[in-house]
């Protein structure tokens, strides 16, 4: 069966010859028409469309966007803020940057529609510090949109006014965590806040109700408001509506970004047919399906269980290649769809060295606020670094697992999970490789590059 065709909703114009990121080009392609219509509709109607659509957040957690909007405290009398989370930092993820670089007005239009729907008077785009070019493009696009009356005072000639500011981060992964992002936006260290009481929907930016949505999510909102929530549910699979953008990196013939209906393509189709399969003479060994914090999958293993299809429970028996690429299927087999960053590793990769690299990243990025993540992430890094560069012991595998097990679920934010899941899953799936690493090292080729 050939792989399904890409369905480009969000990436409709990405890499399209002749398509530029300025306003005239966007208008020529029907830009801001959705916003013009949206501001004539009752805001609650827009919220209802988003709720109906079943849209799930594209930042990583997959939390339903309509539910998130429904949690916002609208009775407090305080202003409601909307923050666009453009801190795309999860290793292996590169979708939002293309939206911002090549189609920034799509994001601005989606943001303004969401602002109007939620009676937001001030929105911020929090863009990752390492994306100065994207920030410049957004500033330029915002200036154009402001001049044309799509952002700022009296939008599209109505009484509704809302401005958007771009705020650049200073280069920290944790700023993608919504409460850390809010702290950073307030000018402080991005230490995530404790929940309760600081749920953004109630006590967010400046202690006011705040909505934090991912770039891609807001672009979906524009599509939903244009075509209706019901139409959106027909894309993808039940509970996994719409399209997903997969950012495939690593050992495939054609890495890149691909937009498909959620759940309509399997991992095998994506890697073998869309991305051209493994490099010549190599075999796939493992894949991380949703950004580097997602749990790794090992080619050759089988996932069995029961799943819901319509109203029935049916048995499934999948290899890695058979897993449909959607939130629920990936969650069911013990990993996650996450941010859509698919990282592929073939049989040339040593798993200890790969984990050493991931651990180096997470120990560097832990904010250091709460104990398990702060100390655990660095300890795991020290162990894997020692294994790679010094003396590896057979008992290190068990120690790594034990350290990792002491972190998730016990921290303020989800970084605890993010930094421990790689170690937990690498050891679970490739434990033998860790136990035998001391022997493997003796015959290994010298590493081409120093690890981070």
């Amino acid at each position, binding site marked *: 069966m050939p792989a399904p065709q890409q369905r480009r909703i969000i990436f409709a114009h990405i890499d399209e010859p002749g398509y530029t990121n300025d306003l005239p080009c966007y208008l020529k392609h029907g830009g801001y028409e959705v916003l013009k219509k949206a501001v004539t509709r009752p805001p609650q109607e827009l919220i209802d469309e988003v709720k109906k659509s079943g849209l799930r957040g594209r930042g990583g957690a997959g939390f339903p966007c309509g539910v998130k909007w429904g949690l916002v405290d609208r009775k407090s009398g305080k202003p409601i803020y909307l923050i666009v989370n453009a801190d795309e930092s999860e290793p292996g993820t590169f979708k939002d940057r293309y939206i911002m670089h090549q189609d920034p007005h799509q994001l601005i239009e989606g943001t303004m529609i969401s602002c109007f729907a939620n009676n937001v008077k001030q929105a911020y785009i929090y863009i990752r510090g390492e994306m100065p070019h994207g920030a410049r493009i957004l500033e330029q696009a915002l200036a154009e949109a402001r001049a044309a009356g799509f952002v700022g005072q009296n939008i599209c000639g109505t009484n509704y006014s809302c401005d958007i500011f771009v705020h650049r981060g200073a280069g*920290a992964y944790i700023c993608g965590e919504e409460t850390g992002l809010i702290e950073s936006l307030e000018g402080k*260290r991005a*230490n995530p806040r*404790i929940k*309760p*009481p600081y749920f953004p929907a109630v006590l967010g930016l400046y202690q006011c109700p705040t909505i934090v949505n991912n770039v891609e999510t807001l672009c979906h909102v524009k599509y939903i408001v244009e075509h209706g929530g019901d139409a959106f549910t027909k894309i993808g699979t039940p509970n996994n509506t719409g399209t997903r953008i997969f950012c495939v990196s690593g050992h495939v013939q054609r890495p890149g970004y691909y937009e498909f209906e959620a759940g309509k393509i399997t991992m095998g189709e994506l890697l073998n047919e869309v991305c051209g399969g493994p490099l010549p003479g190599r075999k796939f060994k493992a894949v991380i399906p949703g950004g580097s914090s997602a749990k790794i999958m090992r080619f050759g293993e089988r996932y069995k269980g029961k799943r819901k299809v319509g109203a029935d429970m049916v048995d499934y028996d999948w290899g890695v290649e058979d897993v449909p690429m959607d939130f629920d299927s990936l969650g069911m087999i013990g990993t996650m769809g996450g941010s859509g960053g698919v990282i592929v590793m073939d049989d040339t990769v040593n798993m200890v060295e790969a984990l050493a690299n991931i651990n180096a990243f997470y*120990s*560097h*990025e*832990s*904010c*250091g*606020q*709460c*104990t*398990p993540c*702060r*100390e*655990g*992430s*660095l*300890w795991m890094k*020290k*162990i894997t670094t*020692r294994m790679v560069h010094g003396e590896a012991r057979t008992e290190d595998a068990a*120690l790594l697992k*034990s350290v990792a097990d*002491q*972190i998730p*679920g*016990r*921290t*303020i934010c989800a970084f605890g999970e993010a930094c421990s899941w790689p170690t937990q899953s690498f050891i679970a799936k490739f434990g033998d490789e860790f136990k035998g690493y001391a022997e493997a090292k003796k015959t290994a080729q010298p590493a081409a590059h120093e690890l981070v």
Partner: protein
Amino acid sequence: MIAPTKPDLVTVNIDGKEIAVPKGTNVIEAARLVGVDVPHYCYHPKLTVVGNCRMCLVEMGMPAVDPATKAPVMDPATGKQKINWIPRPQIGCGTTASPGLHIRTQTPQIKDCREGVMEFLLINHPLDCPICDQAGECKLQEQATGYGRGYSRFIEQKNVKPKRTQLGPRVTLDDERCILCSRCIRFSKEVAKDDVLGFIDRGSHSTLTCYPGKQLANNYSLNTVDICPVGALTSTDFRFKMRVWFLKQTNSIDTESSVGANTVVWSREGQIYRITPRQNDEVNDTWMADSGRELYKQVRAADRLTVIKVGNLDSTLDMAVKAAGEIFKASAGAIAVVGSGRNSVEEQFLTKKLAEALKASTQLVSRAGTGDKILVSADRNPNTRGALVTGLISALPTQQLTGLAAAIDAGQIKTVVSIGEDLTAAGLTAAQLAKISIVYLGTHVNATSTAAKVVLPTYTVFEKSGTFVNQQFRIQKFAKAVPAPAGATDDLVILAKLATATGATVPTADLAAVWKTIAAEIPALGTISFNNLPDTGLLLDQTPWATLPFVEGETLHFKPAASAETRS
């Protein structure tokens, strides 16, 4: 079963024990009430909750209700309402009491959580307890013993951080010992209002430091040392001086102002090593000023008076009292007593008795400064109100004894009994001092003691017991921490002897006897004795003095009466 017993109380269940606590009480405090210890580092009852140490993780559950009908779901096995336990552990400090809240602290999951956090805290900790000042009062030590695994699996290099940073004039920081709980940061920001501390760098390399170009130099900096759960912040004064387990703790009162911060004096073999605050939620919470912690240095100061003198000759107590009696007789009717706002209530009472026996006028010298709005008030006498309550004075004292000076010039006063007051500081000239005979009771050398005919060395606050009445009219007691140096005599003994020498009948100079008389003669103190006074003091009825223009402005837990608000 879970119905609130009072409108503002909610019943919670902690490890099977039910207790009614005010709504909003957090789990750590509620557990304390039922005798369950929830270990913690970053939580401090007087600071905001940040929940970063993760030591206080507990299991939390709420009574199950049917989502549709809201009817309680019963558990057939127990016959009670079913409890829905949250699988993820929750922080005790950030979880507040709500009706029916159930908490478990003794499950395998919580044991594992605590062992994990303890292990993580220790892997990069230097474990230099043998040379660490905090040893013996270190939460890390205590909780490693109580909740840790007891062995280490860490074979990597520990992180290296600055070892002896001078954060300010009084605080030294060892960053390697720091567990990044942020108590000191929150204290500086929230209580001392001097937001100079913060973390730099990230993750396990996070390092506590001062803002560039600033110092932790405020007058409350040593409180950060008190609340540091480990040996990271140490008092530069106390550092490496003494093991804390050798020190005796004596409850005392800070004498630097009328706030009357409650303190503990730490001493060994007659020597004081440090003073720390003692919790009193009505007065000073858990804080005190740095300036009050240095007062113990007066005990062994070089200018301490330790020799009884009559004229220029060394003398004995009885000889000196006799000499004073002769002076009193010779100048009968021309005697003034300058009492002290730094004396205890008991001493002020006996001073009044002495003045009555001498038919002398009494006055006090006020000592006014600027209040810092926290724990140092504008009135730097700790016991001005004691003098009012005992009737030693009836109006507020002044800084200058102009009336006394005039009386000396007019020849109406020939003898002055000064209780620790330097009369030159109160405006009297050397020439005026030369005209009179001075009987001086005091602890340290000054111009008045030098000019005195009779010098009677007395005790500092650390060498005696007694009571002070603070700005709130709260009577609080302090106890003797160390013996006085040879040559000094208890103020009460001297005052009693002087009064007896003039023929008056006064109670014997021990606290219990003095208090019997005080209780009999002073209605405001009628029900009190030294022994039944609680450690946190008793509020007295202040209405007789409500109209006096006291100098204090607002401080922690104190608002001046409206009439005095504009002063300070």
